[in-house]
Each structure stands twice: as C-alpha cells, then as structure tokens.
C-alpha cells in the first residue's frame, strides 16, 4: 500500500486499506474474515481493471510520469544483468541523464541506451530529472557509432520530459546535438529498436528514438510538447493541461493509430533477431521509408488553389509495409 497513489486510483486504495486491516484478523479460525478478504481482493482486482480499462489521456500522462514507474536502469537490471555502463562524450563531459553501455542478452551483444530519471530528490538532481544536456546526446551517439562499427544492435529506452532548456545546454549546441542524433540514427547500419517506457518528451525523446522499430509501453506518452507547455501557449493557462493532453493525442494507442509507433508490446529481442540478418542497405532503406510515410497532408488539384483545407477526417497514412 506504500508508494504514490494517483487521484483516480483512490477507490482501489480504499479497498486496499480495508484488505490490509483485515489481514491481521483473517486466520483459519475466522472463516468469515477469510471470506471477506477474498471478496475484497476480487473487488480490488475488478476495480483496478475497470479503472485502467478507461483511462483518460491525462490519467495516462500521470501514469507515464509515475514516480514509482520502472526507469531505464530498472529495465536493464532485469533484461541485462551483465550491463556494463560506458561514460562520456569525449568532448565535454559525462551526462548522468542518459545511461549507455554494453550488454549481452541471450547471447546477443547489445548496446543499450536510455534516459534515466531519479527516484528521489537527490538522485533527481544528479540525473537532472532525465533531461539531458548536449553531452548526453553526444555520448549516446558516440556509443551508437561504436555499436555500428562492430555490427551490434542498439536498443534505446525513452523516458524524458524533454531535452534540458538551459544556458549551458544552449551554449554547447543542444539543437545541433539533437539534430545530429536524428540524422545519424537514420544512417547507422545496425538494427535500432526504441521503446518509449515512460515519457517521450519531444525532440529530447526523438533524438534517441529514430529506429527500425519503435515500441511503446501501454501507459507511456510521446508528444511534440508537454500538455502543460501546450496549455500555457494555446490556452494561456497551464492548468488547462488536461484539455491539451486530450487534444495532443499522445498515448500509445493514439500513436499506433497515427502510425508513428509500430507496436504496443515489449518484444525487443524478437525484433533484434529478425533484423540482425537484414542486409545493411535494406535496413537503412526500410528505416528511411518508414519515416517518409509519416505525416498527414493533402495534395491540392492546382498549385494556386487557396481554399480552406477540408475539415473532414483524413485517412491516416497506410501502415508501414
């Protein structure tokens, strides 16, 4: 029962409290208490399913940012206990907001790179809340190039509010660092699998997420701007974030519908194995083709046409082959 509960989880929490209280009483000697316990547990289960079956986009934003959600290093600990972290961009410094290193998973060598948030205040200051500076993105690129040199597949885990907007970051070329990663990732001749595990915050997320396959956890988000930022600009009111979250369509199922991500489930190793044998050029061609298909626009009859675009819903781009 410990941990952080979100407002919409309160009904579950109430039952969990009752269950906890009952635990002490429910002994083989008191069958009524046992029965009640089983009943409550079923109810909690049912309630959890109900609530989670119809989450609003804003509720999913909260889940994606949940402070007890697994972070990059938690995933790594489970899937790659042998992970060896590598440090530094060889130019300026090392950025703890991004972790990168080598791993062997089921005999497959992998380079794993991800944004890293902190669990508590102290750790969050060290990790800068998962908001990387240019040196973080340059470290990631350096290690991805190493991976490409040796033909090793790359797995990236995305979880950031965004690239850090600060003085030093601007001075050292935050835009260039992001732009370079996006360009080079289209170029690297090894399979790249990206998984949005929590918050996919704009350019700071994309700069680690140009891949052959982009997966997304069910309650993760991926957005061009934070709902708060969008609300502040368009509604001139940051408290309208809930509305902005709805308008931005930033959940995993939205992105699947918009053909921006490929799958919802975690199937990293299956993809690594299926891509590792793909001829290099074919790999790059398919990766480029996938991104070229993204976007929804119209083609007008004549160049000069100047009418209003139609408001009717367009069919989204065809799914990637």
């Amino acid at each position, binding site marked *: 029962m410990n941990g952080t509960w979100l407002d919409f989880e309160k009904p579950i929490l109430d039952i969990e409290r009752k269950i906890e209280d009952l635990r002490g009483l429910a002994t083989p000697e008191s069958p009524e208490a046992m029965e009640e316990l089983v009943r409550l547990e079923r109810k909690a289960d049912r309630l959890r399913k109900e609530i989670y079956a119809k989450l609003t986009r804003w509720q999913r934003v909260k889940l994606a940012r949940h402070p007890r959600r697994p972070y990059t290093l938690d995933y790594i600990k489970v899937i790659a206990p042998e992970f060896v972290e590598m440090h530094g961009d060889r130019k300026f410094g090392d950025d703890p907001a991004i972790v990168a290193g080598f791993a062997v998973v089921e*005999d497959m*060598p992998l380079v794993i790179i991800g944004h890293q948030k902190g669990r508590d205040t102290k750790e969050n200051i060290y990790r800068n809340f998962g908001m990387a500076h240019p040196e973080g993105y340059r470290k990631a690129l350096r290690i991805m190039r190493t991976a490409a040199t*040796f033909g*090793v597949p790359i797995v990236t885990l995305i979880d950031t509010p965004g*690239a850090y907007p*600060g*003085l030093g970051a*601007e*001075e*050292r*070329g*935050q*835009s*260039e660092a*992001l*732009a370079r990663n*996006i*360009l*080079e990732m*289209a*170029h690297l001749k090894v399979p790249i699998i990206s998984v949005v595990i929590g918050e996919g915050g704009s*350019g700071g997320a*994309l700069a680690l997420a140009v891949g052959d396959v982009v997966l997304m956890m069910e309650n993760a988000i991926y*957005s*061009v*701007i934070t709902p708060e930022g969008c609300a502040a600009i*368009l509604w001139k009111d940051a408290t309208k974030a809930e*509305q902005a979250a709805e*308008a931005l*369509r930033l959940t995993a199922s939205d992105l699947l519908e*918009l053909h921006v991500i490929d799958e919802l489930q975690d199937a990293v190793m299956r993809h690594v194995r299926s*891509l*590792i*044998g793909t001829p*290099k*050029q074919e790999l790059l*061609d398919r*990766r*480029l*083709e996938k*991104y*070229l298909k*993204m*976007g*929804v*626009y*119209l*083609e*007008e*009859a004549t160049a*000069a046409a100047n009418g*209003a*675009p*139609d*408001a*009717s*819903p*367009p*069919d989204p781009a*065809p799914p990637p082959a």
Partner: protein
Amino acid sequence: MTWLRKAKEGLKAQQRRRELPDGLWSKCEECGEILYHKELERNLWTCGKCQFHFRISARTYIKILLDEGSFQERFSEVVSTDPLRFRDARRYVDRIKKARESTGLTEAVLCGDGTIEGHPLVAAIMDFDFLGGSLASAAGERIARSILQAIESRHPLVILSSSGGARMFEGILSLMQMAKTNALLARLSDAGVPYISILTHPTTGGVTASYASVGDVILAEPKALIGFAGPRVIKQTIRQELPEGFQRSEFLLQKGMLDRIVHRSEMRKTLAWLLRFFAAAERLPHPPRRRAGESLARFRAASGPIPSPVGHAPTAAPSPVPERGTSPAAAPEPESSPPSPAGAKPSTE
C-alpha cells in the same frame, strides 16, 4: 535596474509585428531609429544604423537571393489537413485558413528551384508569418520532396529557416517531420550533394533541432535569435536573467555553432560563391558515389500522396519530383547492394 528593461525587451521580441507600416517612415524595432521607407527597402529591410534585420516574407527572399525570374515553385499542392482535429480556442483548420489568407502562401515553407548567378539550386524558404513558420506534416513533406529533388538533380540544397519549431496542432506527426527530413538529409550527404542552411530571426525549437542545424555550411543573418528553447522557457527554467546577446547569431558564431554571419545585402553574393565552390568540387574526379539516386523511386512512392479525406479526391498523383533535364547522375553502385550480412554476426546460439 537594467534587468527590468531587459525583461521588457524579451517580451517585446516575442510580440514583434513583422508587417511594416504603409507610411513613408518606419521605426527600427531594435534601436528605435526612424527609417525612410524607400531607404529601408533599398537596404533590403535592414536598419542602416544598428543593422537589425527586419523579418521578411519567403517571396521577398526569393526576389533578393535568386536570379530574376529563375524561381520555379514546386510542391505547393502539398497542404495541411487536420489529422488530430485539433481545437483550442479556435479550430486548427481556421488557423490554417487565416494564415493562407494573410500570407498568400499555402504552407509555412515555399519550395522550388532556380539559379543564383547562373548556378542551379533547390531552395526551401520558410515564412514565419505562416503560423510562426511551424513545421508540420505538409511543410515536412515539401522539404522532404525538395531534398529528393536535390538528390536527383544533384543541385545544391539551400534551406532558409525562420521558425518557432514544430507545430503543436499536429502533435506527434509534427515531431516526426524532424526525423523524416533529417533521415533524407543523411542520404543527401551520402550522395555528396551540398546543403547550405541559412538561419534567420527567429529560428528555434524543432527546426533548429533538425534540418537547420546539420548543413554542410551554416550561415546566419546578423542578430538573429537562434536556439533550441526560447528565451522565456530558459528564463523560467533557470530563474535568472540571460546574458546580453545570448542566443543571437554572434553568440552562436563564438560558440562554434555557425560558419559565418552574413548581412542580407551580402547573402546572394555569398551563396553564389559557395555554389561556385561546390560546382567546382563536383567536377573533381570522384570515386563512385554512394548510392545517390538508386532507390529513390521507392522513396518517392513512400513519400507520395496518402489517401485523401472523404470528398477530397486525390489529384492524379503527379510524380512528386518534377522531371528535369538531368537524370539522376549517380550510378547505382554494387558495393551497397544486398545480401551483405549485417555486420559482424554475433553468435546467436
């Protein structure tokens, strides 16, 4: 109390109106100098006193930079729709409509080809007046097609940026245009076709975090605001005043982010020189180019039109890249043809 004054300036920068008054006199937004309109026009809309560069439209840039009458507009048929059916106080479709009416453009980027002192180029010019020069599906697609055109024609690509970043109203699809354009620019680089990026006031956000920052040559107009995050956001984040000249062209040059700062009146000459340089480089003996045009047909298909909304019959899908006299120059090259194994095969036992 200088910080008060500076804070005000920061706000002013956000609200600058770009249209010049119709009268005979204009006031410089930077130094307050009163400028005679005719004089201003003669100076290509730059202040004679402080060299501030007024924001100008994409069509004006075409007029200033390209040989007269050489510009041929392309891809104007690619226009925005409203995939998210986005609406805040106003509907996105209404915003587009208004932007079209006020600018006479159909998107935030004007694409085409032309010549500068006789040197051919493919040009994409952004216009800040169209929804803040924001990047979304249609603008991204136009730029992508321009890059393909540059690869096929082997004519240098020039992108002039002026943008607030990715367009919120198309959500994640706008963000993906950054990947689309940069993934193609990687191919342009492979093909050995030069790309010159010009940054003007202001260029921030997703545009600086994608194509604007990866030119083979990066030029900027003087005093342009260029950065990833805007000054307001940075101020909110660090909660202190920004140093004088922070994120201006001169600052970026000093930090190593730009090749040159070029006054608007020198831009045409500078571009002509660079195009001549690259044309000379093109004539050097080269090892076979890495796959320039080989698989382009495939990408043209990929980036072609998508099914239109109901009631909007697609136009007979034209070849997005117009046929040009020159055929794709680069010969397909066997080195990169399939079945080469994907690198060192790790043991998968």
